Structure formats: C-alpha cells, structure tokens
C-alpha cells in the first residue's frame, strides 16, 4: 500500500516538474522546439525550475530534520531566525557597499548571514557538551525577533533603493534565477541531503527520545550536531538561491508523514521531493496567473500552503513529529 502511494507520489512530482518546464505564459512543445523556444527553455525556464527544485528540496528536507531533532511539529528552518538573519545580512551588506561579488553580492551576503545565524543559534543551544532542543528553539525564536526588529529599523531609516530591492528579493523571488548560483548551491544541498539520509536511522531514534537513542547505540549529541549541520547547509544554500520562501519547511514533512509515514529514511528524501515539486508548482502559478506580472513564489506557497495546513490540522493525529 505504502509502495503504491510512494509510486504515485514520485509520478506526481515528475509531472509537476514537466509542467513547470513546458507550461507557463508561453507554452512550449518539447517535441517541436523552435530557436526562441529552445532559448527560453535552456536560458530561462530550466535554471528557474532547477533553482525552485533545489530550494524546495533543501527546505522540505530541512523541515523534516528540524521537526525530528527538536521533536516539535511546529519547527521549520525559519523559526530559528535563519531567514531574518539572512535578510539582515543582505541588507547590511548592501548598505555598507558590499558589492564585492557584483550581482552575486546579495546571495553571498545572505548565505554568510544564514550560516552565521546557524552558528549563533547553535552556540546559544549549546550546553554541557551538546545541543539541547528546547534551548535551540528558544534561542532561535529570540534571535528571529531581534533580527526582524533590526531589519525593520534599517528599512524605516534608510532611503536606499538597493536596500528596498534586497528586502523584496528576500521575500522570495525566482524571476532572476540563472545558472551562476546553481553549481555551488546544489553542492551544499547534495552534501546536506547526503548527511541527513545517511544518518536517518539516528534521527528516527532521536524522535523516540535521547534515552532510547543512546540505548540503541547512537551518540546522541554527535548525531544531533550532524543533523543540525545538514539543516544549516541546506537552508543557507536555499536562502542564497532565491530568498526566504515560507511554509515549505513546515508543511512538506506533515504532508509526507500523512501519506507515507514517519520513518525518516522515507520522510527526508520524500519531503525533499515534495518540497521541490511544490515550489515548482507555486512558481508556475506565480508566473502564469497574470502575465506579464509575476507573483512572488513565497506568497503563492503561503496562499496554497496555509489552507492545506489548516485542513491537515483538522485531521486527527496528523500534526505530530
């Protein structure tokens, strides 16, 4: 039964991917490509779909990891302040004239910000030789408020046009996606996914509690650190690719648990696939709904995601770690 569902799940994801590539304001027939269409496909559509896929995969898997590590169904990568920290870093970078990397300055600043915040949250969550879930969560929430407040402050005192653009970009915009950032970002996502998948048995054990995890032969603190590092790598890569797109990290693990169960060995890869497909779909809707205007993908994910999340909430025993 579960195998059948898994098959349907993969087929649905593949169909969405194909749809995202060939549908849109301009439909492309993959069997009859004209020169312009080939140009659109390879220079615009494909990198955009790849970026959406990578971001969604990173966020979906990160959410699955974090909900398990924190043993909290409400956790997502942004609750730890990674998004607001990245936005703040991007804004600060632009204000202080950080144009060192040219057009890549914003993504690079965002990546540095996200990584620094992850380290900071980890430092606050660290006590007696290990990371403690409650401390991590509370530290993250505290830092999130702090960074959002400082960002607000900066926005209200500055008239810098660059700053405004950076902040808008941070809300999740895939329209500028091109090939430049894909190789380094995909390396981070692959490494993060690899670590998480390799340690997925340990994550299962951690979900049962530290005591069972220890009894089953796992070094609890080391495993938690691995998982946190995998999450931080993927989230930072995602933020630098296209800003902070909400709801994927929170929602995807819940949908996958509902359909395929809680075993992390399935949950992590399936949340990644679901996240990738979902963001491709959201982006497709965002650019097709009222062309030539584009809706930011983050808005679309929230508008589709929030009602579905509330629907799941009504179903018994779904919203759990």
């Amino acid at each position, binding site marked *: 039964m579960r195998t059948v569902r898994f098959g349907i799940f993969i087929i649905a994801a593949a169909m969405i991917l194909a749809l995202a590539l060939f549908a849109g304001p301009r439909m492309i027939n993959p069997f009859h490509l004209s020169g312009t269409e080939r140009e659109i496909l390879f220079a615009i559509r494909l990198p955009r779909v790849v970026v959406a896929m990578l971001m969604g995969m990173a966020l979906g898997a990160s959410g699955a990891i974090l909900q398990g590590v924190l043993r909290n169904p409400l956790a997502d990568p942004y609750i730890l302040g990674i998004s607001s920290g990245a936005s703040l870093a991007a804004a600060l970078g632009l204000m202080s004239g950080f144009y060192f990397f040219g057009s890549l300055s914003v993504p690079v600043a965002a990546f540095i910000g996200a990584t620094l915040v992850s380290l900071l949250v980890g430092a606050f969550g660290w006590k007696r030789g290990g990371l403690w879930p409650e401390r991590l969560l509370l530290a993250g929430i505290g830092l999130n408020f702090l960074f959002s407040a400082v960002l607000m402050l900066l926005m209200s005192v500055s008239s810098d046009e660059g700053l405004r653009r950076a902040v808008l970009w941070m809300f999740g915009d895939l329209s500028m996606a091109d090939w430049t950032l894909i190789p380094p970002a995909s390396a981070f996502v692959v490494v993060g996914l690899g670590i998480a998948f390799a340690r997925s048995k340990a994550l299962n054990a951690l979900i*049962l509690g530290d005591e069972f995890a220890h*009894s089953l*032969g796992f070094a609890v603190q080391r495993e938690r650190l691995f998982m946190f590092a995998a999450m931080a790598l993927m989230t930072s890569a995602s933020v630098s690719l296209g800003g902070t797109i909400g709801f994927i990290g929170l929602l995807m693990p819940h949908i996958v*648990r509902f359909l395929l169960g809680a075993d992390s060995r399935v949950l992590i890869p399936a949340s990644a696939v679901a996240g990738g497909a979902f963001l491709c779909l959201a982006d497709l809707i965002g650019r097709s709904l009222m062309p030539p205007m584009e809706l930011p993908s983050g808005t679309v994910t929230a508008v589709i995601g929030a009602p579905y999340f509330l629907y799941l909430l009504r179903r018994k*025993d779904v919203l759990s*770690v």
Partner: protein
Amino acid sequence: MFSVYSGPILELRDVSYRYPGHRLIVDKLGFSIGNGEFIGLLGANGSGKSTILKLAAGMLYPAAGDIRLWDKPLPAYRNKDRAKLLCYFPQHLDVNAPFTVREIVGMGLYPYDIPPQMTVDEAVEMVGLGEKAGAYVTNLSGGERRRVFIAMTLIQGAGILLLDEPLANLDIKYQIEFLRLLRGLQEKKGISVIMALHDINVALQFEKVMLIKEGSILGIGSPETVLTGEMIKQAFDVAVEIRKSDRGGTHITHERWF
C-alpha cells in the same frame, strides 16, 4: 585455550554522581550483577533509582568511581557494541510521531549489521500486539505503547536489561505477563535484569532486592532480609507490615490508608 569469565557482568565501583549545581545524587555506590541475575531496585521518589540506571547504561558519566561491563570499562565500548550487550528502558515514553508498531519494534535492530534471530513480527507477537502490528503507536493506549517498546527491547537482544519502572501504566495482567516473559528469557538466554520499582509488593517477587535511600544502598540481598518493616520505614518513611499469604506469596499490609 581460553578461560570462561565468571565474574560480574556489570559492576559499579564507588560511583558518585551529582547533577551540576546539586547535592550528590549517587554517593560512593558499589554493586554488581552476575549472569542471569534479577535485581529489583527499590527506593522512594527521588532516591536516585533512575540516575543509578542511567549511570550503569553509560548515559551519565560518574563524577568518581568506575563502571565495568564484562570486566572492561564501560566508556571503552563502541556505542553499537554496548547496545548489543546493554539496554536501557526509560521511565517516560512520549512518542508522538506516527510510527507504526512494526517500525518502532524494528528499531531494536539498529545496532546490528546482520539481524539476530528474532524477527520483528515474532517480537510483536510476544507482547500480544500481533493484530496491531501495522497500527500507528499514536493510536495506542499508554499500556500498549509500553508493550511496543518492550518488544523493541526484546529484539535488541541485549543480555543486560536496565529497566526504569517498566510496569508503570500496565494492567496487572501485563505486569505479570511481562515479569514471566523476562523470567522465560532468563531461563532460555540467561539475561540479567535490573528493574527500578517503587511498588514494594512487586519487589517482594524478586530473589534479590536493592533498597536505595538518597543515592546510597540501604540493603541488598533477598527480600526477606532487606524488605523488613524497619528497613521500609527507613527508606519510605511509612510503617508497614510484611505478611506471608496462605498461597505462598508475600505482601505488605498497612493500616487503612484514609
């Protein structure tokens, strides 16, 4: 030639422990357990039962003293190797993930590269959950959940079980069944058990009892010698009487509770 080891399989020597910033929870405690031995660990709330079991499981590091498993220091074991010899069963089970019964029981095989003989379905059957093997643990009652974890412990196959109040939340039927199941494993496989308890009547069923007060041993030995009215008064601060029943059991009696 090789010699057969016949000493204690788990030994605590002068072990002390304190939680950071607190008084000593365990104070120069020493005891050992031999192959196939069952020990009931009895003491009032906060007497240090759980801490002693966590120290013995290698989950906490003693401030002083050392712990030896099969005559080798406990920290010298690799985690996975230790898990095949020694298993800890926590007091609180709070799992709210929709794992199925079979999935959780299967986690008992994580320490192994080559699975041992018992299959997941056999273990599930042994705790009487055969019909619910595919059910989500989140839909089971407290007692049923406990049996799921008992099945996981069985399949993990460790020779030493450190059980922290495993009978809590269990109906009396399953309390008796669980104790008999352990007895059967003792006879078949020679497992050893240290079980934290706070029910004196259950402790009276054990051949060996260790009575704890404030992290020190008040008495260790057969229930007849350790669980006297006077010792129980010391450990629990309550006056009771130990009676033999006509049917061969022993139990405590107390004046009307309220």
